[in-house]
């Protein structure tokens, strides 16, 4: 009934040092929360090469604009965060759901567990969603997030960042990451940013300021291209031949 042979795409494994280790003591909350026994290799079969294709009918343009949801305008520096979602072969990833969350300009999340004594902004909830277009492109309008203290170590402050969640087109491509801002003086002290061993990979988490895309009299623009795992073309073609 379900026998038969067929070729499936295979996704390339990230290079060593590309992703942070799960066991990373400088980020204290990792304690007790990482596997200690050897991981078992999982071949890429049907469940792994497919994935949820979410968002049709779920997302409106309004979801990508975090600045126009309330009666008034949020406080802070208005910014455009835009870019493309690509795979490591350089191919755009269209039609994929992006979800973001961040602090307001004062460095405060709108969530009951955030007790940082900085003001909430009644005109900013700090969450957004978008679906990539045919070229893998996306664009959010938001407010420059603030730094905040977090108690990981003495005088610990998170650099300003925006959380990104992406699905790609396959279970193998699922990614949750954080976008940082260029030139942030807190980056060298942040264990989460520095948990990524490979420096070139780490730099991929920093957006690039774009004067060309900055809107005169209105908003600064930051480009943040996100690269998901790509298919191993050689394997796929070979199996198809």
């Amino acid at each position, binding site marked *: 009934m379900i026998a038969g042979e067929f070729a499936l795409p295979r996704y390339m494994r990230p290079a060593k040092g590309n992703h942070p280790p799960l066991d990373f003591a400088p980020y204290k909350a990792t304690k007790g929360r990482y596997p200690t026994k050897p*991981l078992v290799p*999982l071949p890429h079969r049907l469940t792994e090469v497919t994935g949820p294709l979410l968002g049709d009918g779920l997302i409106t343009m309004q979801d990508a604009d975090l600045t126009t949801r309330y009666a008034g305008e949020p406080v802070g520096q208005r910014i455009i965060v835009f870019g493309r979602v690509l795979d490591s072969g350089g191919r755009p990833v269209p039609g994929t759901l992006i979800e973001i*969350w961040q602090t307001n300009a004062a460095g405060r999340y709108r969530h009951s567990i955030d007790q940082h004594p900085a003001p909430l902004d009644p005109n900013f909830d700090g969450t957004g969603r978008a679906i990539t277009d045919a070229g893998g492109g996306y664009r959010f309008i938001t407010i420059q997030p603030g730094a905040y203290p977090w108690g990981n170590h003495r005088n610990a402050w998170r650099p300003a960042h925006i959380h990104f*969640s992406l699905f790609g087109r396959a279970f193998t491509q699922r990614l949750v990451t954080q976008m940082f801002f260029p030139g942030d003086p807190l980056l060298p002290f942040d264990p989460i940013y520095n948990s990524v061993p490979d420096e070139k990979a780490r730099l991929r988490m920093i957006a690039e300021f774009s004067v060309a895309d900055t809107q005169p009299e209105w908003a600064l623009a930051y480009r943040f291209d996100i690269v998901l795992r790509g298919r191993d073309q050689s394997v796929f073609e070979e199996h198809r031949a």
Partner: protein
Amino acid sequence: MSDLVTPSATVGPYFQMRLPWPDGPYVVPAGTPGAITIFGRLWDGAGDPIPDGLIETWQADPAGRFAHPDDPRDPIPDGDLVFRGFGRAPTGHDGSFKIVTLKPGPLPSGDGRTEAPHIDVSVFARGMLDRSVTRIYFPDEAELNDADPVLRAVPEDRRATLIAAPAGGSLLRFDIRMQGDAETVFFDL
């Protein structure tokens, strides 16, 4: 083109602002005939529940098919079945989560073998710099489980951590232990 991808970073505790959806745990709508509920708790190495975790599931439908262009088989019309294939549940203060779904069908492995019915799981939490990936198998599939190429690659004394436990009626229990003697098997994807 560099082969580097964008690195993973933790979801932190504030994913709760955006990622949980009201219908997230419902792979099928409540009341769907044949629906099962998979519930469990997420535990850390000290035996404490993880209250700021997020469990995501991805699976085939009961016919063993995916509504996805990379499933090379012809689609089987689902009729009126509303089936997302994807579930998402944040853990509660006691580390608990639940997913309401339909049991997936067995799958061809592509090389002539058969994969037993299973659900792929991603575990996210504050304190996890990357997701951990595991699988849920079913207790009433002993024969297919014994022949499953992924389960067979797991040390025999750890396989039980991947098989949900019957909990009466349409309920199945699947606890996820990040560490400890009964540490859940996690996969290198």
